[in-house]
């Protein structure tokens, strides 16, 4: 996956939309340091943004401060991203993704989940105590 061996990068976000600017900068740094294939880099950036935006926008009661810890790591050719957050229970595997036939009249949102399911090669979710724990793998 990368030419420089194992990598482990961490970021902590609060449930504030302004945090997305910091997320984008963090992803830029990962791309600079890791020689990811073009499609893998695209898939990673897309999934990180979609999951994080969903959390800062809808993951918590706005009156409550929530935290999402993101870890991206490579090891033995495998790239994984783990999201651990304090938001309300949310299992992306159980949510219904919007269908193409719905699009003409549907709200102009809700694309992110379908994109994550498509661009990540594997997803796993568990509710661990009062945290959501989501892991995505990329080919």
């Amino acid at each position, binding site marked *: 996956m990368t030419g420089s061996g194992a990598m482990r990068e961490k970021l902590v976000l609060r449930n504030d939309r302004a945090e997305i600017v910091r997320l*984008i900068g963090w992803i830029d740094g990962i791309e600079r340091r890791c020689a990811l294939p073009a499609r893998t880099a695209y898939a990673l950036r897309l999934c990180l*943004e979609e999951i994080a935006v969903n959390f800062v926008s809808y993951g918590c009661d706005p009156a409550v401060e929530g935290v999402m810890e993101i870890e991206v790591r490579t090891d033995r050719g495998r790239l994984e991203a783990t999201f651990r957050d304090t938001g309300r229970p949310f299992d992306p595997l159980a949510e219904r993704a919007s269908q193409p*036939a719905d699009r*003409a009249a549907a709200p102009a*949102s809700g694309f992110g989940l*379908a994109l994550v399911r498509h661009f990540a090669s594997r997803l796993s979710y568990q509710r661990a105590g009062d945290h959501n724990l989501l892991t995505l793998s990329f080919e």
Partner: protein
Amino acid sequence: MMTPETMTPEAGRNAVVAPAGRLDAVSAQGLELQLAEALTRGAATLIIDLSQLTFISSAGLRVILLAERRAKAVGCRIRVCAASPLVREVFEVSGLTAVIRLYPGREEAAAAGCDASRLD
């Protein structure tokens, strides 16, 4: 970060908006403003040329879909063209290609805008 879009009136009839770089949750608002401004100028067809776009997320899709709906309301046609394979894949996976046709290039998009039999 997305670089500034270009917006060029073509023959007084078509307008072109060409976002460049990445269209993500941070940069999408800039394109939304550009498209809203373009729609106020009364062009019959607004071409969104994606040839310089390297990345699009759901935030970018949302802006383009909203522009398509606003365009219909003011009698303007939206034509989207020149998407890279990965950007096209994002459109397809999201289901947007059921609503917004992707044209190979600016010429095809402009021609479709002039041919009523090919309108969506």
